[in-house]
C-alpha cells in the first residue's frame, strides 16, 4: 500500500478535491431545491387522472366544408371548451391542445366523478346557428312522392330537400348523433335532440359567434318559470332583428326560429314580435338545469371547429389507486432487481450503482414535485412506466462506464488512472447514446397524445437526470473510491479483483503493484 501513498501527486490531490466538490455541489443543489419545493408548497406529486380517478376526453378536429383546421381555430376551440368545462366548477379541470401545429388534439381532463356530464357537455363541440323553421312534422319517415309537387312546397324548399325530409327518421339513433357540418348558407333538414320532431330549416341568418351573452333566469312572479336571456352583438342585433321581423307575420311553423346546435334543434321558439333591441328571452317549461344548459350552449356554442370524439376515459378513484399501487410496486421491484444484479456482478462497485440510482430517483422525485408546481406536470401511469424503463437506461450508463473502467484495468492501468482514461472514453459513448434516447423522447412527445406524452416526458427528463448524475455523482464517486485501498488493491469483493476481471495471474510471480 505504500506505493499508493507515494503516488499522491499534487494533481491527484486536486482531482480528489474536485470530485468531492462536485458531489458537495450536488448535495447542496438537492437541499436547495428541496427547500424551494417546501416553500412553494409542492409537497405532493400531482397525479394524473388515471391514478386518482376522473374523466378525460380527447377530441380530434375535423375539417369540413368551409372550415379549415388552423392553429387559431384550435386555440379558440380550447378557449371555448375551457369556459364550458370551468362552468361546471370542478377544481383542477384542464383543457389543453396537445401535439403540434394543426395536427393537435384537444384533451379535456376533469378529476372526480363528473364523467357523464363532462362527456355530454364537451360532446356539444358544435356550431350554433339560428335558422328559420320552414317545415315541421312528426319524426317518422314518410313517403316522399305524395307531396313532391313543387307548387305545394313552401318557399325555400325544393324537391330534393323535401325528399330528404321525407326520408329522415328521427326515431333512429343515428339521426340524433348530430355532428352536422353543413354550411350555414344552405337550407337543411334536421331533428330535434329528443327525436320527437323533424324540421326543414332555412339558411342560417344568425350564427353563434354573434351571441354576446346568455344566462338562465327565473321569472319571480312564477308565471314563466325558468327562461334564458340572450344578447347579441352589433351584427347579431341587426341580423336577428331582420330575421324576427320577417317571420312574425308568417303562419306556423314558419314563425319559429330554431336554435340549432351541432346539427340538432335544441329549441324552436315561436317569435311573437320583432326583436330589434339586441336581446331576447327564450321561455318554455324549463327546469333550472335545462335553462342553464341552454344558456351555456348559447354562450359557448360558437365553436370554430367540428370535432370527432377520439377517446373518452373514465377512471374511478378505486381503479386509480390500484394503478398507482401497481406502478409503484413495479418500480420498487424493478429497482430491487437492478440492485441485486449490480451487487452480484459488480460486487463493491454495485454500491456506486445503487447510490447513483438513488440519487437519480431523488432528483426525479424533486423534479416531479417542482415541475408540477411550475408547469403543471402531472404523473400518469404511462409516466411511471417511462420512469421505470429509464431505470434501465440510467443503469446502463454505469455499465458502460464500469466496463470501460475494467477494460482499462485489464490493459494494465492502475485503478486510479483507469478511472480517468476510462471515463474520457465512456463519457463520449454515454453522451451519444443519451442523445439518441433524448431524440426519441422529444419526437414521441411532439407526435403523441395523452398518456403517451407523459411517457415521453418522463423518459426525456430521466435521460437528462441520467447525464447529470453520471457526470456530477457517479464519476466523482468512483474517482474517490478508487483511492480507497479496498478498491485499488483489487479486493475480491471490490469488483476489480483479477479473478472477477478474468485476468491471468502471471505464473512467474512477477506480479507487481503499479502506482
Amino acid at each position, binding site marked *: 500500500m505504500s506505493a499508493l501513498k507515494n503516488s499522491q501527486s499534487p494533481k491527484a490531490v486536486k482531482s480528489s478535491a474536485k470530485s468531492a466538490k462536485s458531489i458537495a455541489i450536488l448535495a447542496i443543489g438537492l437541499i436547495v431545491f428541496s427547500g424551494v419545493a417546501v416553500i412553494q408548497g409542492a409537497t405532493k406529486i400531482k397525479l394524473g387522472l388515471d391514478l386518482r380517478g376522473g374523466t378525460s376526453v380527447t377530441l380530434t378536429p375535423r375539417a369540413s366544408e368551409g372550415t379549415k383546421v388552423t392553429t387559431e381555430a384550435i386555440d379558440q376551440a380550447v378557449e371555448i371548451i375551457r369556459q364550458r368545462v370551468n362552468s361546471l366548477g370542478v377544481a383542477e379541470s384542464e383543457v389543453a391542445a396537445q401535439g403540434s401545429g394543426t395536427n393537435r388534439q384537444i384533451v379535456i381532463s376533469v378529476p372526480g366523478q363528473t364523467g357523464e356530464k363532462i*362527456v355530454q357537455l364537451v360532446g356539444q363541440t358544435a356550431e350554433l346557428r339560428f335558422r328559420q323553421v320552414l317545415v315541421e312534422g312528426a319524426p317518422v319517415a314518410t313517403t316522399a312522392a305524395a307531396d313532391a309537387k313543387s307548387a305545394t312546397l313552401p318557399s325555400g324548399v325544393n324537391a330534393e330537400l323535401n325528399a330528404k325530409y321525407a326520408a329522415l327518421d328521427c326515431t333512429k339513433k343515428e339521426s340524433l348523433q348530430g355532428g352536422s357540418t353543413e354550411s350555414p348558407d344552405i337550407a337543411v333538414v334536421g331533428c330535434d335532440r329528443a327525436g320527437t320532431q323533424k324540421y326543414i330549416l332555412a339558411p342560417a341568418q344568425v350564427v353563434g359567434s354573434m351571441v354576446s351573452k346568455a344566462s338562465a333566469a327565473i321569472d319571480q312572479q312564477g308565471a314563466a318559470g325558468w327562461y334564458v336571456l340572450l344578447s347579441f352583438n352589433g351584427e347579431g342585433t341587426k341580423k336577428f332583428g331582420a330575421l324576427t321581423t320577417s317571420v312574425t307575420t308568417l303562419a306556423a311553423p314558419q314563425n319559429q326560429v330554431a336554435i340549432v346546435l351541432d346539427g340538432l334543434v335544441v329549441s324552436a321558439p315561436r317569435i311573437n314580435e320583432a326583436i330589434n333591441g339586441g336581446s331576447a328571452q327564450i321561455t318554455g317549461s324549463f327546469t333550472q338545469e335545462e335553462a342553464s344548459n341552454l344558456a351555456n350552449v348559447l354562450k359557448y356554442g360558437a365553436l370554430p371547429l367540428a370535432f*370527432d370524439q377520439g377517446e*373518452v376515459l373514465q377512471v374511478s378513484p378505486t381503479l386509480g389507486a390500484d394503478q398507482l399501487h*401497481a406502478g409503484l410496486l413495479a418500480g420498487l*421491484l424493478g429497482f430491487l432487481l437492478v440492485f441485486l444484479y449490480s451487487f452480484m456482478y459488480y460486487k463493491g462497485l454495485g454500491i456506486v450503482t445503487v447510490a447513483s440510482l438513488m440519487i437519480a430517483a431523488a432528483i426525479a422525485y424533486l423534479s416531479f414535485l417542482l415541475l408540477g408546481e411550475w408547469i403543471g406536470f402531472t404523473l400518469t401511469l404511462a409516466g411511471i412506466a417511462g420512469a421505470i424503463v429509464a431505470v434501465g437506461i440510467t443503469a446502463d450508463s454505469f455499465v458502460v462506464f464500469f466496463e470501460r473502467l475494467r477494460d482499462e484495468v485489464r490493459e494494465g492501468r492502475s485503478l486510479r488512472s483507469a478511472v480517468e482514461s476510462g471515463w474520457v472514453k465512456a463519457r463520449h459513448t454515454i453522451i451519444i447514446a443519451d442523445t439518441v*434516447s433524448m*431524440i426519441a423522447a422529444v419526437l414521441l412527445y411532439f407526435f403523441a*397524445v395523452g398518456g403517451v406524452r407523459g411517457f415521453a416526458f418522463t423518459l426525456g427528463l430521466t435521460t437528462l437526470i441520467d447525464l447529470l448524475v453520471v457526470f456530477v455523482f457517479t464519476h466523482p464517486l468512483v474517482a474517490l473510491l478508487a483511492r480507497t485501498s479496498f478498491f485499488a488493491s483489487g479486493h475480491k469483493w471490490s469488483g476489480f479483483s483479477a479473478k472477477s476481471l478474468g485476468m491471468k495471474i502471471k505464473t512467474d510471480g*512477477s506480479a507487481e503493484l503499479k502506482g
Partner: protein
Amino acid sequence: MSSLSGIGGRLYRGETSIDFIGKRRRWYAFSGIIIIISAITLGTQGLHLGIEFKGGSEFSISKAGATVEDGRAAIAAAGVTGETVVQKVGNDRLRIQTGALDSFAAVKSSLAQTFGVNVDDIDTQIIGPSWGKEITKKALYGLIGFILVVMVFLTVAFESKMALAAIIATIHDVFITVGIYALVGFDVTPATVIGFLTILGYSLYDTVVVFDKVRENTRSITSTGKITYSAAANLAVNQTLVRSFNTSLIALLPVASILFVGAGLLGAGTLKDLSLALFVGLATGTYSSIFIATPILAQLREREPAMRALTKRVAQHAPGAVTLEAKGGLNGSNSGSETKVSWARGPRNQPKRKGR
C-alpha cells in the same frame, strides 16, 4: 457471475472470440427467415388490434365475486349485440369490451344494476372510430421524423455508413417485433405502439455503444495495417459483448417487473401492453446491435478502396490472419481457435499487463 467476468476478460483480450462478422450470412439468413415469416403472418392473419383501433367501449367493474357469465347476461340485457369480450382481470375485476354502442348509458346502468355498484364506480373508455387511425398516423410521422433526425445525428457524431447500418438494424427490429406480435397474436393497443417507438430509441442506443467501440478500434487501422476493418469491428463487438449482455439484462429487469406487476395486478392495460412491447423489442434490439448492425457496417466499409487495400496488406503481412475475402469465415469449422486468435490480434492486444 464471476465466470461471466472471466469471459469478459477473455473476450476483451481476444482470446475468446465469436465470429460475428464472418458468419454474417448465417445471422442475415436467420433474420431473413423470421422477417419472411412475420410478413406472411402479417399478410394472412394480421395484427390483433385492440378496441382502440376499431372504436368501441370498454367497461371495467370492480366487484368481488363478479363472474364472466354475469357480465355477459348484463350486457345482453342491455341489448348489446355483436362482438363482445368479457374477461376476468385479477381477483375481482371484470372487463367488458364491446363495439360501438347506441346506448352507452343503458349498458352502464344495466351493469351497475347487475353487480350492485354505483354507476360512477364503473370505469369506462369510449373510443371513436377514427382514433386508431389518428394514432397510427402520428406514430408513422414519429417514426419517419425519428429516423431522419437520428440519421443526421449519427452521421455527424459517427459517419454516414454507421448511421445507415444503425437505421437498417432498427427497422429490422421493428419488423421482427411487429412480426412476433402478429405471430403470437398479442393485442396491439396505442400503448403497444408507444412501446414500438421506444424500442427504436433503445435499439439505437445499444447500437451506438457498440459502434463507438468499433470506431475506436478502427481509428488507425489503415496506418498500422495489421488488422482488417472487419476483424477490428468483430473485436469491438466481442469487447462490448459483456456490456451488451449486462445492459440488456439491466434494462429487461425493470421492464419485466412492470410486465409482471402490470399483468398480474391490473390485467390488460397500459402497463402490460407497453412493457410487453418493450420486452420483445429490447431482446431483438440487443440481437440486432450485435448480429446485424455491425456486420452490415463492416460490409459497407469493406467496399471502400482504402479498406480493400488494407485487407490485401493485412493478408500479405500476416499470412496467419484470416480476412473475409481470403477465408470467408463462413463456416469457421476448419479455421480453428488459432485463426480466431489471430483475427483479433490488434495493436492493443500486446501483453502490456503487468499484473498487480
